């Protein structure tokens, strides 16, 4: 097992009050697997991902349970030790490509940043690896983009730059936190194709977080449905989508816009 999350609970504490964001979350992932977490807003899916990445300020949250990545419990590591994994073995792509890139750094510098932090490669080698990652992320003209600044790029291209930056060190696990939500449908489909390619070519496992059931269904092998911080249902995509056991999952699936309905005339009111 590459990743094992067991009995993970996350509580946000503010003064006397505490809110449980995630309760008793369990998930196992193998190398190269693509797993989706779906749920409505506030269901705890992003908190789970952020906990996995070590993004939460430890002073503000109470985390219990374990997150074992390649046999090491990430929750017991010091910040310094965790940094060894961040960006190298574990990478994340955020939801908002418009704000996830630094406006004052060139695309090349940002894609290279992980290499600069985690390796001792020379300038030329870094550049070569960055261009390679940019090509892998589906950017058609990496040479020209290398010197550009983010404001010169479209949203779809920026998200590809984020993917390139996340992939430049060939991580074993890529967390995608609603990476296509801010993009239009055409670009969304292209980005999903790119992620699928990366998974196939590089064997990178992907933990894909989304509220879009259609996207998860087309990309993932397994899916976890969350609601109010608790896992409602989990299993293979076929199992969950075609034979849902829980009422909530059924309701979620029924709430998806079906093609038939749209063709038959939009219901008013």
């Amino acid at each position, binding site marked *: 097992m590459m990743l094992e999350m067991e009995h993970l609970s996350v509580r946000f504490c503010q003064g006397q009050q505490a809110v449980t964001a995630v309760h008793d979350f369990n998930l196992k992932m193998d190398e190269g697997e693509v797993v989706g977490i779906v749920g409505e807003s506030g269901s705890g899916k992003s908190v789970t991902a952020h906990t996995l990445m070590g993004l939460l300020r430890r002073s503000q949250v109470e985390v219990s349970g374990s997150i074992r990545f390649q046999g090491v419990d990430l929750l017991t590591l010091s910040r310094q030790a965790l*940094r060894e994994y*961040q960006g190298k073995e574990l990478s*994340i792509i955020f939801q908002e490509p418009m*704000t*996830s890139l630094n406006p004052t750094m060139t695309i090349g510098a940002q894609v290279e940043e992980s290499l600069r932090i985690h390796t001792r490669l020379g300038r030329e080698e870094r550049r070569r690896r960055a261009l390679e990652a940019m090509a892998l992320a589906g950017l058609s003209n990496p040479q020209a983009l290398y010197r550009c600044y983010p404001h010169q790029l479209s949203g779809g291209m920026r998200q590809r730059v*984020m993917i390139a*930056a996340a992939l430049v060190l060939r991580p074993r696990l890529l967390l995608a936190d609603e990476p296509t939500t801010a993009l239009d449908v055409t670009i969304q489909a292209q980005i999903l194709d790119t992620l699928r390619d990366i998974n196939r070519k590089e064997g990178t496992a992907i933990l894909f977080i989304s509220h879009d059931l259609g996207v998860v269904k087309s990309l993932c092998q397994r899916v976890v449905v969350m609601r109010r911080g608790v896992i409602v249902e989990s299993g293979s995509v076929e199992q969950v989508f075609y034979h849902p056991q829980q009422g909530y999952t059924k309701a979620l699936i029924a709430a998806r816009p079906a093609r038939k309905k749209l063709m038959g005339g939009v219901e008013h009111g």
Partner: protein
Amino acid sequence: MSGVKKRINWYFAAGGVLTTLTVAYILLGMVWTPYDPGALSAADRGAPPSLAHPFGCDHMGRDIFSRTLQGAGTTLTIALAVLVIGCVAGLVLGALCGYYGGVVDGAVMRLCDAVAAFPSILLALVVIAVIGPGKYNIIAALGVLFIPSFARLVRGEFVKYRDRDFVQAARLMGVSHGRIIFVHILPNTWPVLLSGLAIGFNNAVLAEASMSYLGIGVSPQEASLGQMLSEAQSYMLTTPWTMFFPALVVVVLILGVSLLGEGLRERMGDGL
């Protein structure tokens, strides 16, 4: 990228021209003055502007052109030194406070509030009263008093950026705090910091002038613009040129840097 029609940045152009002129003026003053700026001449006391003395002479017969050439240099040196102290210390304090927050942030900011609550000239007077007058003491006193405004400016920017997505992303790549502060966030604060520097420079020039005007600035032998204005005060009505030309140099110096700062801000604002 290209094909965008370039608008002429008038602020930048005008500021550039004025600042270049002033700097040239000051550099000239370092190597050459028509007369010795300190030389007294009884015959020329209060002489009006003429070919021999383009800016006239003061009440002691000293050539005002020569004195402004030298005095502008003194004023500029003091202003820049003050700015460097205030900006560097303010930058470091503000960046750390803004980035880390917490108790230290609160304490430092309250201290800055306390300093800012007093008129800075008054505080500078107190400091000078304790450590004594002189060029370097003036620089030290004003420099320290300039720290809070920069610290607050920079802190505000860091608070704004510290939880931005791209900063989070950098953290998740394993980038160290130091590198995040100086490489990832600091360049984003340039537009605001530059305006702050331009305003700070003007304040520093005026503060030096005010201190010298009050007679606690540079020593009387050394010319500075503020000190010249101070001396000219009594003769303003009889020999107005003793007041006019030093004041003109102050105005051109400040105007040039202000316009330059505004122009730079506009230019960087376009890019971001």
